[in-house]
């Protein structure tokens, strides 16, 4: 048997799903669609003690069965095409009116529906009573009060469902008792003649001129248009869509609510209102948001927690202050990683393994996998913070506060969160784009995320910049971050005008009542993220590290050579593609294939850019034996690679900037590409996105380098021409279209209500 859970966003749908299926849930993908559907198994124990497995499907949260958001289309298609045996419609009793709007639509389908009335405890606290038995009588289906968190209620619900699923149900509509009854009956008769499944649902959708419906059957739609014309005769066209939506709501407010809801005392959502008075305040809203965001990043990334060192509150040995939670946990992970690597190495040595096998396992596989794994605590912390923000209801307020700023780029406020996360790590940031409504918006946000300089890239800046800019490294590094943001803005505008032409984000967003985050649902979400992360690490990352290791250690006749030596495949490859980078400045000179190789290994993990340069430029004191204590190795590494770069005069200021800009914008690490692939769910789009990152990096580096050269070498007239061209380019990017005249609403509109 298959049961589907349908309901409004924020109605406790996912919590119910998790209570039903426990850890049996797995995320499945719909073919060709970008929104997740979850499927799990509930073990139902019959009275004779036999256990039946019921598969439970968590449909995306929807307000209606109109075909306008991806979520709605999925839910609608699932119910019609996949034919679940029963729909559990979860209804938030604190918001009965809008939740029942969906219920009345679900009832139009030929499928048994059971209403699970959620948050009954909250409504009681707010001073109202809901008579669920009367509600059941009016709707003609079972209504079970549940609290999605209590298992006893869930058992009761499932008992009722298994009982009810045996009685086949025909769709029914409230319309038969309204002013539109006559038209509705006639259309229904016409639909019945065509022998269509779910006749009631289709009849109403046809009456509404639903865009998907009208495409299905041309003769049927033509017949219905004629029928409608008969009724209109000489009067102005009748707006069925608005009228039916209106009647639906009227049915709920007039026929259901007065009989079902009894308000004893009206406290409403008073406390939530008080919180909003500060959090979305016209003046304080923005500062409070900034402080909250900073606090999250501080807890995850700061090496000077609460600024004890900076403010001189406490004395610390060494360069750092108190570790924040994220840094502390990362330290433990690094310790663990070193332990595993040293001992595996030792074990293999003692067991008499071949050198190449030892190298492949320790330097290739373990090193690559562990370097990513060390970020696990910070990634989980980031997701914990985000889950809390989301569960409490603050996330939609962030979107509310920032929507205005992002609108110019065709994005909505919701796109801000993933971008912000990009400063930490692109991988969770890209996963965060799942919450975005439109596919275009999701893709665009995903493409912009790598431009927000991530934590791993910081290692490169800290190494390269001081080698060239000795006295003002901090300022230059700050400028790198600004450059990233600037490119993201320019990229957004360019994308909006080309690839995503016509991208328009609507912003109709419910601001739910604040609630305490629930431990159960948060831990569940974290567990899901952890599973996903570990899968990526053990598959994609493990495979790719082995490949890079192989290329570093073997020559073309497959003999093992010392890492990154002149005859390794990687070097030959680097030389072969060097021409691509010549116009960017930093590939000049016989030795600079090494920078190409550094960039290439950076595709695996951005930290690898530094370690590769360290090996290739034979940095003094650089530990080629990576099994040292990593903490020392990192701080020592940055110092010594920097010195080596300076001593070898690898960079001029200009080539350094070009190199840094290229690394900032180019294809992020393998993990990010793999994540992009799984989020985009399309190979074609993944290739395009990779191309976009590469092209942006190349073009911007090219502009930076060539402009620098021109400014240095060329005469005044050419400089003016150059500046003129740049101004024209910028102007064409930022140019705005003229505003069209707005409709102010009058009676001449054929479709006005």
């Amino acid at each position, binding site marked *: 048997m298959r049961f589907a859970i349908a309901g409004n966003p924020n109605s406790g749908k996912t919590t119910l799903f998790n209570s039903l299926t426990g850890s049996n849930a797995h995320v499945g993908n719909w073919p060709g669609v970008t929104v997740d559907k979850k499927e799990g198994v509930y073990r139902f124990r019959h009275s004779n003690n036999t256990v039946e497995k019921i598969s439970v499907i968590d449909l995306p949260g929807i*307000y*209606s069965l*109109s075909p*306008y*958001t991806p979520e709605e289309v999925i839910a609608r298609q699932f119910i019609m095409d996949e034919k679940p045996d029963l729909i559990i419609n979860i209804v938030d009793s*604190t*918001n*009965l*009116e*809008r939740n029942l*709007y969906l219920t009345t639509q679900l009832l139009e389908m030929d499928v048994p529906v059971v209403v699970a009335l959620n948050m009954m405890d909250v409504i009681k606290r707010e001073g109202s009573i809901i008579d669920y038995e009367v509600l059941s009588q009016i709707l003609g289906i079972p209504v079970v009060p549940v609290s999605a968190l209590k298992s006893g209620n869930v058992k009761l619900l499932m008992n009722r469902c298994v009982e009810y699923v045996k009685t086949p149900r025909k769709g029914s509509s409230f319309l038969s008792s309204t002013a539109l009854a006559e038209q509705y009956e006639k259309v229904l008769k016409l639909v019945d003649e065509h022998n269509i499944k779910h006749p009631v649902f289709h009849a109403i959708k046809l009456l509404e001129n639903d865009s998907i419906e009208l495409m299905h059957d041309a003769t049927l739609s033509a017949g219905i248009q004629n029928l409608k014309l008969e009724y209109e005769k000489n009067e102005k066209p009748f707006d069925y*869509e*608005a009228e039916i*939506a*209106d009647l639906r*709501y009227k049915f709920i407010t007039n026929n259901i609510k007065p009989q079902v809801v009894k308000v004893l005392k009206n406290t*409403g959502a008073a406390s939530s209102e008080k919180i*909003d008075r500060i959090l*979305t*305040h*016209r*003046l304080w*809203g*923005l500062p409070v948001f900034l402080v909250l965001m900073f606090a999250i990043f501080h807890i995850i990334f700061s090496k000077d927690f609460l600024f004890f060192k900076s403010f001189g509150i406490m004395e610390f040995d060494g360069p750092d202050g108190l570790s924040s939670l994220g840094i502390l946990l990362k330290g433990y992970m690094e310790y663990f990683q070193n332990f595993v690597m040293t001992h595996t190495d030792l074990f293999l040595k003692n067991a008499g393994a071949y050198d190449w096998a030892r190298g492949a396992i320790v330097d290739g596989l373990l090193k690559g996998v562990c370097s990513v794994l060390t970020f696990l605590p910070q990634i989980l912390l980031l997701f914990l913070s985000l889950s809390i923000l989301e569960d409490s209801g603050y996330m*939609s307020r962030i*979107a*509310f*506060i*920032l*929507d*205005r*700023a992002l*609108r110019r780029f065709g994005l909505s*406020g919701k796109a801000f969160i993933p971008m912000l996360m990009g400063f930490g790590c692109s991988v969770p940031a890209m996963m965060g784009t799942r919450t975005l409504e439109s596919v275009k918006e999701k893709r665009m946000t995903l493409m912009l995320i790598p431009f927000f300089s991530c934590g791993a890239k910081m290692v490169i800046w800290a190494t390269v910049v001081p080698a060239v800019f000795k006295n003002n490294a901090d300022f230059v590094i700050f400028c790198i971050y600004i450059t990233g943001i600037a490119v993201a803005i320019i990229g957004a505008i360019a994308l909006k005008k080309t690839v995503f032409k016509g991208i328009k984000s*609507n*912003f*109709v*967003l*419910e*601001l*739910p*009542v604040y609630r305490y985050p629930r431990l159960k649902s948060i831990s569940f979400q974290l567990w899901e993220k952890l599973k996903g992360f570990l899968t990526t690490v053990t598959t994609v990352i493990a495979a790719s590290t082995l490949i890079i290791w192989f290329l570093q250690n073997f020559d073309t006749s497959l003999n093992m050579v010392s890492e990154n030596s002149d005859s390794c495949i990687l070097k030959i490859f680097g030389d072969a593609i060097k021409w691509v980078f010549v116009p960017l400045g930093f590939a000049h000179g016989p030795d600079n294939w090494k920078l190409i190789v550094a960039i290439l290994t950076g595709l695996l993990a951005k930290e690898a850019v530094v370690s590769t340069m360290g090996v290739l430029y034979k940095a003094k004191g650089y530990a080629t034996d990576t099994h040292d204590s990593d903490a020392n190795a990192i701080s020592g590494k940055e110092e010594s690679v920097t010195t080596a770069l300076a001593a070898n005069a690898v960079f001029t200021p200009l080539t350094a900037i070009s190199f840094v800009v290229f690394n900032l914008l180019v294809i992020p690490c393998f993990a990010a590409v793999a994540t992009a692939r799984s989020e985009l769910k399309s190979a074609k789009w993944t290739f395009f996105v990779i191309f976009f990152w590469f092209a942006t990096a190349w073009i911007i580096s090219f502009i930076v380098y060539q402009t620098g050269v021109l400014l240095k070498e060329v005469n005044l007239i050419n400089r003016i021409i150059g500046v003129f061209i740049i101004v024209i380019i910028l102007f064409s990017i930022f140019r705005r279209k003229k505003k069209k005249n*707005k*409709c*102010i*609403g009058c009676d001449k*509109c054929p*479709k*006005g*209500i």
Partner: protein
Amino acid sequence: MENKLLGEFKPGEKGTVEKLTVLGPLRRRLLDMGITPGTEIIFNKVAPLGDPVEIRLRGYKLAIRKTEAEAVLMKKEDKS
């Protein structure tokens, strides 16, 4: 009682919906969210950057952009 677009309301003002003046998906979305003729809407507040706006209807809070609020023609209730 005067007719006025919801987008031109000031914080604290309220009224009832007259009609929607847009077509297509946005219209459907607004209808689905409960903005149907006769619905009472309170204009709560404006976001810190001046847009979007927060409205209250049918017992819940909804954020919509000003351009979207301008698609809703209201009958404004006089202040008592």
